[in-house]
């Protein structure tokens, strides 16, 4: 007999099923309504319309004026911020994957003096919250003349200790016999790394890549510190500064404009997410527990 996964209690299956769907649909509405519907609906109103009370559930006369305003105004440069975010996230992901996978190969498959000691020191820093690096790193980046440049954001993020730990675990499980067979066929270290371990573990690398990309794309604290000029900001920094400039807490001036900026910055994310959702959720399941 085939083992069945846990079932809804058999007697009330039909009722339970309807209740279950109702609950899930409610939760889905609670997620989609704020994040997409109300944000986009507000962005299509005029600012006075956004303050109507009671509020209109859809814009009475939808207008794209705020989107147009964003494209022409210098201080809310969402496309430019999006470009900065994209360049930084892509470069960070590429550099991180490259240096981290090379080191993971070294720690997983090669021998050299002090290997375990070095690895323990590296892993130990996982326990230390990243904010402790911020002030000394800021001073270093400033002395290097990197403030307000992509370098300031990309390089400090490249040594990803968690990623090293994750990839080392995957690389360690590759069977020794297959590696020896490759050596017999004349493969050196570079070929084993580049032509065997990288392709065999591509799922782990993609998962880590998605993880790193999303963290870089959404990071606020560090870019906020090192990118100060308007045209150099990333999307999270640009929007956070807007949040401060247009009132705090309950007071909110020009909500329609702000919601247009938010929509513009998150609609590309939605599109990418819809296309790759299976891949993205699987990656987070894989990386979520450090590959355990």
């Amino acid at each position, binding site marked *: 007999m085939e083992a069945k996964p846990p079932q809804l209690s058999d007697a009330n299956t039909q009722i339970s099923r309807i209740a279950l769907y109702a609950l899930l649909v409610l939760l889905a509405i609670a997620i989609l309504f704020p994040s997409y519907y109300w944000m986009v609906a507000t962005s299509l109103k005029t600012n006075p319309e956004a303050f109507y009370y009671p509020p209109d559930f859809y814009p009475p006369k939808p207008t794209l004026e705020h989107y147009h305003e964003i494209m022409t105004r210098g201080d809310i440069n969402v496309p430019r911020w999006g470009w900065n975010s994209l360049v930084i996230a892509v470069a960070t992901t590429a550099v991180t994957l490259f240096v981290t996978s090379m080191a993971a190969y070294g720690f997983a498959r090669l021998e050299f003096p002090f290997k375990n000691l070095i690895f323990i020191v590296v892993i130990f820093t996982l326990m230390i919250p990243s904010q*402790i*690096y*911020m002030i000394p790193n800021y001073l270093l980046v400033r002395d290097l003349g990197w403030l307000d440049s992509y370098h300031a954001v990309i390089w400090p993020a490249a*040594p990803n200790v968690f990623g090293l730990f994750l990839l080392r675990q995957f690389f360690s499980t590759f069977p020794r016999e297959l590696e020896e067979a490759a050596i*017999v066929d004349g493969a050196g270290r570079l070929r084993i790394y580049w032509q065997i371990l990288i392709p065999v573990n591509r799922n782990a690398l993609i998962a880590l890549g998605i993880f790193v990309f999303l963290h870089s794309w959404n990071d606020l604290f560090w870019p906020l510190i090192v990118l100060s000029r308007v045209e150099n900001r990333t999307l999270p920094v640009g929007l956070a500064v807007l949040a401060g400039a247009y009132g705090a807490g309950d007071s909110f001036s020009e909500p329609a404009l702000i919601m247009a900026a*938010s929509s513009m910055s*998150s609609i590309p994310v939605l599109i990418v997410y819809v296309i790759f959702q299976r891949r993205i959720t699987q990656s987070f399941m894989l990386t979520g527990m450090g590959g355990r």
Partner: protein
Amino acid sequence: MFARYRQSLLPDKRGVSGSWRSWKWYLGNYAFILPFMLLFVVFILRPILASFQMSFFRWEVFGPKPFIGLENCDELLNDDLWWVALRNTVYFAFLTSALLTTLPIFIAITLNLPFRGRNDFRALFFFPYVLSASVVGLVMRWLLGQQFGIVNHLLGSVGVGPIPFIADSDLVIPSLSVITLWWAFGFPMLIYLAGLSNIPQDIYEAARIDGARGWQMTRYITIPLLRPIILFVAVTQLISHFQVFAQPYVITNGGPAQDSFTVIFYMFRAAWTYFRMGFGTAMAVSLAVIIMAFTLLQFRFGGRRLEY
């Protein structure tokens, strides 16, 4: 034959060590970890040590930087704002972690049931997590406003409120916690789903034969088997929410008054508004010590793996 090849790749202590051949070989092996280690030393190890060192100095961007021993620490202990920020941070971290550890268990168990469309629900529920804190903050601020917020309008239509979610001293931290729950619950949900998929199905089959039904299975099988993962989630959530900054920065600017001001927010202000880098590192070091205490708890309790 294999042994010889293997030795050439991985020279052991008896083998070729000491010779020029192995020296060159080891150098090649070091080359693989060199780029990572270089960046690691410059951007992680050095700043950790520098932070500890700087916290003993009056380190301001301009002017002399004298050694002052524990004066920064002393100032922190006597600083009312520090204690307010610490209290807010601890309150927020524990409340948010409690929500983010418990509720996703039940969502994960529900989404692990066999029904059509469960993968779509998984993807939908994870979605808010990919939005940046800035977008989430701005949208939530607009939704939860006391005067013009749509949530208060809907509550008003059933005769409740208006509730000053983010403008009231007592409500602001719980509100930020619930916003964070909305934003991030998909991540622990996926971790729990990964854990659930590792529980062998025959355990449920055996329990069914013994007469166990729905809730009993959850209570006596699923949750006990998930325990190591629940612990892992609780500790990692606690560590990450101790470092909260973006939500109060974007949503409340630390207000009303200082009621949502947090430790990292204070460090940010000390270092980049008042340029008191030494004082800022003293805060970072203090928080690091608190967080490390919780990480050690994880090693104490979370190290075991459960066998089925």
